[in-house]
């Protein structure tokens, strides 16, 4: 096997190698895109989970008690403020018993109003808390969706990353094939052994080459003999 054929084989092998390397490069780039997208989406997921967990932490029975207590306390303060305003008109007193009864009755009424206000405040606090959490989750979800939406384009871009190498590999492969063909089809300048060499030409014949290499011998009248095709 001559050096030319070996070179051709080497070139073909190099072309195949480059083609494979290009494919691997594209594959790695696509994997990177997928991993990067998954990483980003995981970040968004963690962000969203943080928001949700914070919101959930404000929905516990303890938080509910606290919010109701705040509502009760707030209304209690306002009622005290309102009922402690000195009246411009003093009512006649009808005795301590009557005053005490009035006080007890009013205290119960105030307490009932405060309890009701506590429930209302709890409901409003929860609604506002949910609204804010939903708003934050909306922003995160929108960003996550937006980030994921560009993945197909990035994947396409990554799939083309190895194309230069693949093109070079394809070119080298083609050259190697041509070289191999050239050597195997009897190039006179190859180092094939003389015993295996084809009878190329006689004393009055000259070798005839086409653009693709040796074809046969050409006689003095232009006839091609000893052709590889069948002459």
């Amino acid at each position, binding site marked *: 096997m001559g050096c030319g054929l070996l070179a051709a084989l080497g070139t073909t092998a190099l072309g195949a190698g480059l083609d494979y390397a290009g494919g691997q490069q594209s594959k790695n780039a696509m994997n990177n895109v997928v991993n990067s997208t998954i990483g980003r989406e995981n970040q968004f997921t963690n962000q969203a989970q943080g928001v949700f967990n914070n919101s959930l932490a404000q929905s516990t029975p303890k938080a509910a008690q606290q919010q109701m207590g705040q509502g009760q306390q707030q209304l209690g303060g306002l009622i005290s403020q*309102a009922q402690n305003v000195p009246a411009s008109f003093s*009512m006649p007193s009808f005795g301590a018993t009557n005053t005490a009864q009035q006080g007890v009755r009013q205290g119960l009424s105030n307490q009932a109003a405060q309890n009701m206000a506590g429930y209302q405040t709890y409901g409003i606090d929860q609604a506002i808390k949910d609204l804010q959490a939903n708003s934050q989750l909306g922003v995160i979800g929108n960003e996550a969706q937006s980030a994921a939406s560009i993945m197909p384009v990035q994947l396409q871009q990554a799939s083309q990353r190895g194309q230069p190498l693949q093109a070079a590999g394809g070119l080298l492969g083609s050259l190697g094939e041509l070289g191999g063909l050239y050597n195997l089809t009897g190039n006179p300048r190859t180092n094939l052994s003389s015993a295996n060499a084809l009878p190329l030409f006689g004393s009055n014949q000259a070798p005839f080459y086409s653009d693709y290499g040796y074809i046969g011998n050409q006689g003095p009248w232009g006839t091609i003999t000893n052709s590889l095709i069948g002459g």
Partner: protein
Amino acid sequence: MGCGSSSAGNQLAQQQAQQQQFTNQAVGNINQAFSGFTPQFYNQQANNYMQWALPQVNNQFQQTSQQLGAKLANQGITNSSGAQNSWNQLNNTNQLAQQGVASTAQNQANQLRQQVAGEQANLIGQAQTANNPAAIGQQATAAAASYGAPSAFQPLGNLFGNFANLYLANNLANTYNPGLAALYGAGSGASNQQLGYY
């Protein structure tokens, strides 16, 4: 060789990063504009309502008390158990009115809290598609300023109207009046009916 899609991918990624930056900036501006809505702010709103409403309650209470005192004196039953009951009812009505003002003040503050939170969420929703964070920030500032401005409260109405109907017009009208009884004759069957229209 893939140049078109390559630049498209990068361009999309840049656009997405820029939009995210705009959104974050706009949300920051919104939160900044609404940072003044603290619990103290809402407490102040409740207090503002109290300061507006309580003098009216006091004024109505004073007028109703004077009417009741005049009625009782006119009936000559100032120190009667019926008078005591009327004063008790007036006192209850007054305290309920004060309690109602306090509840309304708290409701006003809560309502404002809901409105502000709703507006903030609405603006944040807009911020996600905005490409001008400064404009969103200005919008948020304007909205926050509108909520921070003093608002017109609903008129209180007649808080003692129910008491007046029950205890001044009807209840006391049926109370025994010695002067009228003497005029129409004690024990006459028509006296009570006529007193009922007094």
